[in-house]
Structure formats: structure tokens, C-alpha cells
């Protein structure tokens, strides 16, 4: 490949530093090269994949997220590192191939550092069971409307152990503080996915005694779990778990509050308590 790719000197518009130019090659050569790579890939799974790259046979592997099957072969559909999840003997017989969007794998460095460095990408779509952080935009009698800020990494969500979750929080702290700032509220809402927390999905116990006003206030940041894709406008979230609920909130006085119990948060300055459906802090 190196004889066909070459780095050239600075392109006309100084914007780009690293240049990659491939001389127009005859199609036969291109074809040959493709076939060549395809053959080598049949034996081993590549570590990095680009869309359209063949990863392996569907007979050997199961296709996970970020891949698609065509003609009994698994192809990558996004660019990213290829991850091979080993077969679980009791549930599935084949190892699962997936291509991840997260551009830092935990294996490469310590998770916290990886999260801190990689720039957050928002283009993961909320799916059923994914954990999201959302800001409350409206509280009504029967439901609260929220706007989804970020979808947390689906791989870390199910086994949310302490360190990882903490690093999650570190990473998104900047997003949250900017989102929790009332000045930033109105502008970006159209660009975010909207969701609804219904009264019956707020908590698991005493469902009929829920008063929405005492659970959420506009501006709160809520950790929720996606229940359903919902109707054409809104997703449905639930907070009916101990680890779900309000994670950040400002008091009436405008100070950031800290949680004191599963249903109360307190203003450190005034000392006044306010009622919330609080997520279990770590």
C-alpha cells in the first residue's frame, strides 16, 4: 500500500497538516488489493474496522452492534475498534463481534484517564434500557418532561460498579454544570431528544402517593433508564430504581444541593431541605 499512498507537502490551504494522497490507480490493481486484504481478514479479526470492511464469517461469529450481515459475512458498519465478546456457554454459542463507537477502550489505559481525555460524543441514540442523563424542562401533575443530555456508555451501565460510575460523573461534569446553568437552557432544547417520566414510573414503591412537584423541579439533572421509544416526540424514562433519580439540583436560593436521603436534598448555604426523588449517590 505504501507505494500508492504518499504524504505530500503542505496542501494549499494550511489547515491540514497531515496529508494523504493516493495516486489514481488502475482498477485491476485496486481490485487485487481489496481481494488480498479480504483474504487475510478471513483468518483473523482486525483490530480496527472501517465501514464496509469484512470482519468474519457469520457462521463463526454473531453480529453485534456496529456490524451488519451480508451474504453470510459480517461487515463493519461504523469506523472503530473491533471487540470480540467471547461466547457465553449457557446463552449463546458464538462469539459476538461488535464495533464500538467509544474511541477509548478500557484496556488501553485506566478508565478514568481514558474518559477524561476522549472527547464526549453525543451521537449514541437512546435505546430501551440505556441509562441517560436528562434535564427536567417541565413538571406536570401526571408527568415530567425532560430533555436527554447524554446517553451513558451502554457497556458500563449494567454493571455500574463504583469506580466506573464515578468516572462517568467526572467526565460529564462539565456538560452537566453547563446544562444545569439556567442561562443555557432554552437554546439547545430542539437539538436534544425529548422524554417523559410518567408519574407511575418515578419510583417503585408507593406509586399512588407520588406528587410530581416533590420529585422533580425544572432544571434538575436526572439519571433515568429508557423504558420505550414512545410516540413520535418523546421517549419514556423511568427512575424507579435506587440508583436512578435526581443527581444534581439547585435549591430555591439557586445553590447546588447535596443529597441527604432518598427523598431529600439540602442547600449547603441556607440549610433548607427540598424534596426530590434522589438517586443513590456513590
Amino acid at each position: 500500500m505504501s507505494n500508492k499512498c504518499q504524504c505530500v507537502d503542505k496542501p494549499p490551504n494550511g489547515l491540514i497538516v497531515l496529508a494523504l494522497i493516493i495516486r489514481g490507480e488502475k482498477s485491476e490493481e485496486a481490485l487485487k488489493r481489496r481481494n488480498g486484504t479480504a483474504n487475510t481478514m478471513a483468518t483473523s479479526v482486525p483490530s480496527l474496522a472501517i465501514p464496509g470492511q469484512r470482519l468474519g464469517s457469520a457462521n463463526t461469529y454473531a453480529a453485534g452492534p456496529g456490524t451488519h450481515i451480508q451474504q453470510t459475512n459480517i461487515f463493519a458498519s461504523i469506523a472503530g475498534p473491533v471487540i470480540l465478546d467471547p461466547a457465553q456457554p449457557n446463552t449463546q454459542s458464538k462469539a459476538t463481534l461488535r464495533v464500538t463507537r467509544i474511541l477509548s477502550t478500557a484496556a488501553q489505559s485506566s478508565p478514568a484517564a481514558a474518559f477524561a481525555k476522549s472527547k464526549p460524543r453525543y451521537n449514541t441514540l437512546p435505546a430501551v434500557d440505556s441509562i441517560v442523563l436528562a434535564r427536567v424542562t417541565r413538571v406536570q401533575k401526571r408527568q415530567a418532561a425532560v430533555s436527554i443530555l447524554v446517553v451513558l456508555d451502554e457497556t458500563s451501565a449494567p454493571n455500574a460498579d463504583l469506580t466506573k460510575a464515578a468516572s462517568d460523573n467526572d467526565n460529564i461534569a462539565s456538560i452537566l454544570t453547563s446544562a444545569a446553568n439556567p442561562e443555557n437552557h432554552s437554546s439547545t432544547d430542539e437539538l436534544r431528544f425529548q422524554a417523559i417520566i410518567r408519574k407511575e414510573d418515578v419510583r417503585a414503591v408507593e406509586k399512588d402517593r407520588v406528587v410530581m412537584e416533590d420529585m422533580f423541579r425544572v432544571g434538575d439533572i436526572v439519571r433515568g433508564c429508557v423504558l420505550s421509544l414512545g410516540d413520535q416526540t418523546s421517549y419514556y424514562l423511568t427512575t424507579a430504581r435506587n440508583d436512578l433519580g435526581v443527581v444534581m439540583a439547585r435549591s430555591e436560593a439557586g445553590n447546588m444541593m447535596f443529597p441527604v436521603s432518598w427523598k431529600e436534598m439540602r442547600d449547603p448555604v441556607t440549610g433548607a431541605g427540598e424534596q426530590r426523588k434522589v438517586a443513590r449517590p456513590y
Partner: protein
Amino acid sequence: MSNQRQASSASQTPHLSPAELSYLYTSLSLPKSPIRPDGRSPTQFRPLTAESNILPGTNGSARIGFADGTQAIVGVKAEVEKTVLSTDTLASSEGGEGEDSTSTSNSAAASGHGSWVQMSIEIPGFRDDDALPVFLSEMMRESLVGSVADGGSDGGGDGGGDGDVTMAGGLKGRLVINKRWHWRLYIDVLLLSQPLSYPLPLLSLTTHLALLSTKLPKLKSQGEEDPFFDDDWEVAEYLYPRSSNLKAAGNASQYVRPPVTLLVVSVGENIIFDPSREEIAVADAVLAISVTRDTEAGNLKLLSIRTVDPPSRLTQPAVPNSENVNMLGATAPTEDIAVLNPATGEEEVPGVWRPRRGGVKRSVIANMVKTVLKKGGVGEEVLEGLEGVEVE
């Protein structure tokens, strides 16, 4: 925004249920003999009623209607316009030796210019700058003005192009009056109701018919003088020369004819013409193919191909029974066996609709074009049929 989305994807995506789509697709992809919902054969067009020369205020006009009530009217108007001087005309007038510039065949003064033909399409429910009318008019115009691209080499000489049988230079050459003047052709297409199917075939056939009936007044001036014309409509000349004894000989192929654009879809291994909206909705590929008669070889030649975005990509998928949450524990949990669809290369459970994805193989395109072009094929029959429409 939603309007634009609809417009660009072949037609307003009809809301069909996955079960309907699957039924249609399977019926249409039956090997050898597709079953179309209305019983037509794959190459059969819907019958249409046609008449031409219906608008006295135009140089040529036509109306075509389908049995479902959709109608199109096309009016062609010709106006005289001054040709903007270009370099070689300047050169010849300054140097006074225009004779030796025989190699100027590319100049607008001799071979005409595509912008002299203007086309506008009005479709109810669409703004004139929506994607669909723009796309349709570009599609039809490009085959019209490009119809004889290589005619320039031998047709460059004469300024008039007045009615010679072969019509050198094609439509563009025909519009040249002299070096300083030309005809400008306005083709205005009007669809009278909201389209029930992708309106391309209807519009193209109507335009073809209108152009066939278009007459230009007879030129009385000569050479490079400012043009003036005979006001006798009887002696006006057809834009596309017609012969009174067309039926007599098989020489119809000598005449340059306006192009027709046919809509062809492929479903599975079948190739289907003049698809209805439902048929387009399940098509693997939709092509608009423009053809005209090749005056030299006597057969048809290809003028343009455009892919049209098949709406099947935007459809709602079906849920196989095995994955349907509402059917858990119902009928025996039969494992659905996925079968490889040869047309798409995807594994599919029979009877379960999946939105199409991916493109079309080259062999399929070649096959579709061949069906249009082949001798005695659909293209020729359509052209013959249109030729047969009475023009008084």
C-alpha cells in the same frame, strides 16, 4: 421539511403496511411471471387517452390522461430571441473572413445552446422549487437538449436547419434562425391533480406529444437579416419534421424524434414498466431511462439514465412472528428459517418485510436498459404508439 423529504424519495411514500409490502414484493418478484396488482404484464403500460394541438395559443400542445383521472397538459411556446455574440462570431465579423472558421462547430450560433430550451413543471401540492419538480424538469430537459450531441460536426454549416429531414444538430440546431437570432422554446408542463403515482412517465409522454405537434412559423427573411415570418399557420413547419406518408414506408426511423423518458423498476429478478405507486414502493431499484430514435442506425439509443431513490428504503419493517412480543407462547414456536434473497443479498424470513438497503448491481442496470432498447422492445412500441396519435 417533511414535504421535501417526500418529494425527493421518488414519490410521496405511500403508507403501506409491512404485510402489504411483503405481499406485493413477493407477487412482483415471482420468477418469470410477476403478478401485478392490476393484472398487467411486466411491460404493459396503463392505457391512456391522448390528444394533441388542444391549445390554440401555443405552438404545440398535448394532453394525456390516465384512467385513474390524473392528467397532464403541456404547452410549447416559441419566441424569437437575439443570440448573444460569442467569440467566433465576433472573430468572423471583425476579421470579415467567416469562411475559414469551419472548425467553429462548437459555437452556439451554429449548433444551438441548451439554455434555449426552458422547461417548467407545475405539480399541485409542490412549490416550484421543491425537489421533485426540479428533479423532473432537469431529467427531462437534459435528454431533450442533449439528444444529438455529436451532430455538431456535420450540422454546423447551415444557419437555417429549416426542415431538412435528418435535422442535423438535433433540437438545439433546429432552434437556430441565423447567426444572430434563435428560437427560445418554453415547455410548460401542468399536472392537473396531485400525482397518484410517480408522474414521470405521464409528463414525459405528454411532452413528447406536444413537441411532435409543435410548429414554428415559416421564415420569410433570408440569411443574416433580422428574421420575419409568414403569418400563415398552414405553411408553418413542424419543429420535428413529420412526413405525411409516414405509414407508407418504414422510414419513420429517419426522423429525429423527441426523447421519451420511461420509468423502469426492478423487483427481485423482474423488470417492470410504468409502475404504479404501490409497485414503486417495493422496488429494489428505480431507473428513469431516456431514449430516442437513432437516425443513423435506425434503432433506439440511450440518452440518459438517472436513479430515482426507491421509497422502499424508508418503509416500516415487519416483525417476524418469532420476535413478536404479542405472540409469545402462542402458536408453536416454529423457528423461522431465514432465506437468502438473491436480489439483495440479505437474509430474510419469508413473508416478513424488510426495508430495502444498498444499491443495485450493474447487471440489473444493464438488463433494464436492454429491455428498453432492444429491437421491438418497449421503447420502440412507446415511440410508435405516440407517433400514431393524430395531429391535425
